[in-house]
């Protein structure tokens, strides 16, 4: 039987791995699919191409479909996020001047303690802090604003600036930002360029921050359930393969090929292995669980995450919070996740909403069938978010 071709858009980042691995390692073919992977250069491009039907599905920042749901984007057909593709994978970097100031007051650059790093940064930074983030609806923006506000910065002291990931190094070198938060390999790329030092992994701020999701047009997901299900299962199995740590070196090789990242594999491997070089001098730091694709129900698209992101965006933009949450939650399709991944044997939680930030350790919880492990999702400052009762 001929394979059904689907066009998938992605941006060159290590968290595009589930798409690449699904195609290259045969998980897509097992489901009768051939994935035509289209490398894109801007998040807005991904959104517009998906909206116009030029791609069937996209690897997208988790907050992007929330922004669309709140009417903060162009008038396009409805988008749904059907599964998370990754958690973590981001790093926060500071420029050389701030690095030296932090070292001068004895900050150890342990690449782990967000509380200490935030306090130290507050001590050395006078006035405004300009932070580069990849998009105005991004996990990176949520992470840095949560962390810096909780570390004593005022909202007026923070300037969040959109910078395309491959340009972070250049923009920092030009003195246009003091710090940035970006997905790998672009933080490591900036370290190698000599102008940046890594301060924290995203997971130090929020231990299970969902980073990318699989986003489809609602009319596609609803009218082409066979292809949607096949695609989700192929990506879910690719994620499971990627979370076997023995596969990460191979994943780095495949992803670094000219067709995908087009960078030396050694660069991608740092994030995949959770072993990052934090400064151009060569200091290494271990960051276990730096990026996750599968373990601990990482791919389940909790509606409470949609609510939490909607809450943040609404507060920042002066929109009605309750209405924003109610509009966002239906776009995280836990129903499709259950329907399409149950046959593959995915562990399914009993509920689709939860108290976010409540697990300080991995925890065994009851599942639809038997039990499952949920990954710790603690915020560094103990923040929790209670979603509204399901509508």
């Amino acid at each position, binding site marked *: 039987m001929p394979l059904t071709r689907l066009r998938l858009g992605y941006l060159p980042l290590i968290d595009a791995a589930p798409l690449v691995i699904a195609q290259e390692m045969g998980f897509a073919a097992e489901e009768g699919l051939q994935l035509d992977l289209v490398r*894109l*250069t*801007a*998040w*807005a*491009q991904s959104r*517009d*191409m998906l*909206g*116009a*039907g*030029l791609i069937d599905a996209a690897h997208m920042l988790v907050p992007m479909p929330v922004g669309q749901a709140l009417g*903060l*984007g*162009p*008038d*396009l057909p409805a988008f749904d996020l059907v599964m998370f593709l990754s958690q973590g994978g981001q790093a926060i970097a500071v420029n050389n001047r701030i690095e030296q100031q932090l070292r001068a007051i004895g900050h150890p650059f342990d690449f782990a303690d967000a509380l200490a790093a935030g306090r130290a940064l507050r001590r050395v930074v006078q006035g405004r802090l300009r932070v580069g983030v*990849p*998009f*105005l609806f991004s996990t990176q923006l949520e992470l840095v604003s949560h962390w810096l506000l909780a570390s004593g910065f005022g909202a007026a002291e923070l300037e969040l600036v*959109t*910078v*395309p990931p*491959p*340009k972070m190094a250049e923009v920092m070198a*030009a003195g*246009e930002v003091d710090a940035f938060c970006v997905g790998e390999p672009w933080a490591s790329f900036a370290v190698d360029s000599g102008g940046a030092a890594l301060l924290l992994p995203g997971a130090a701020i929020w231990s299970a921050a969902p980073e990318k999701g699989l986003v489809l047009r609602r009319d596609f997901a609803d009218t082409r359930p066979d292809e949607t299900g096949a695609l989700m299962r192929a990506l879910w199995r690719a994620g499971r393969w990627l979370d076997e740590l023995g596969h990460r070196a191979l994943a780095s090789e495949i992803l670094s090929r000219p067709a995908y990242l087009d960078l030396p594999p050694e660069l991608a491997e740092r994030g995949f292995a959770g072993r990052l070089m934090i400064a151009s001098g060569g200091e290494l730091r271990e960051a276990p669980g730096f990026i996750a694709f599968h373990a601990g129900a990482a791919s389940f698209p909790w509606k409470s995450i949609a609510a939490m992101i909607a809450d943040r965006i609404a507060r920042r*933009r002066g929109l009605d919070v309750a209405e924003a949450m109610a509009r966002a939650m239906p776009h995280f399709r836990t129903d499709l996740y259950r329907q399409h991944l149950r046959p593959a044997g995915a562990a399914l939680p009993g509920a689709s909403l939860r108290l976010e930030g409540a697990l300080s350790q991995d925890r065994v919880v009851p599942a639809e069938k038997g039990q499952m492990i949920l990954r710790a999702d603690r915020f560094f400052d103990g923040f929790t978010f209670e979603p509204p009762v399901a509508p």
Partner: protein
Amino acid sequence: MEKRLTIVIVEPDKERALPIVDGLRELGDHDIRIIAEETGLARQIAEFRPDVVLIDLANPSRDILEELALASGPTERPVAMFVDRSDEQLTRAAIEAGVSAYVVDGLRPDRIKPILDAAIARFHMFQRMRTELAATRAALEERKIIDRAKAVLMKARGIDEEAAYALLRKTAMDQGKRVADIAQQLVMAAGLLTCR
């Protein structure tokens, strides 16, 4: 008479920007500006106060414009992303051609359409030119390589040009490869074997 529009084209490649400007000039008396240097893009755009911004759909700087489009400070002009579902065909044509447009709020669709149509036509034209140029260049490169491979064979085996080409063609057919690929391999191998 209708108000003159300020149109900004964000395009680092001058060869690409100028034909778009020409295309827009034909529409009437608009104030057309090119931004080629993308550092401080937001600041530059704010200075021009454009009614329409045209930019390559795949330009990474688009993500910076998105921020601008949603900004609503007192000094900023409200700018909407041009995706109007009332004219889905035009939107799709623009996206396919690789153009995106940001349009000041309240600008009438009948004023936007000709601008976008002109931009779409020029984007397509540029794409065709680029494809042709790339194909011509590749053909030229291949001819050069084949000539060099023939010279290598003529010298090494003492055969004439015709026989050298026949040999290249036969080898390519036997191996299921293109003559140019075989020629490339031969030239590379010959280079490795030659003492310098």
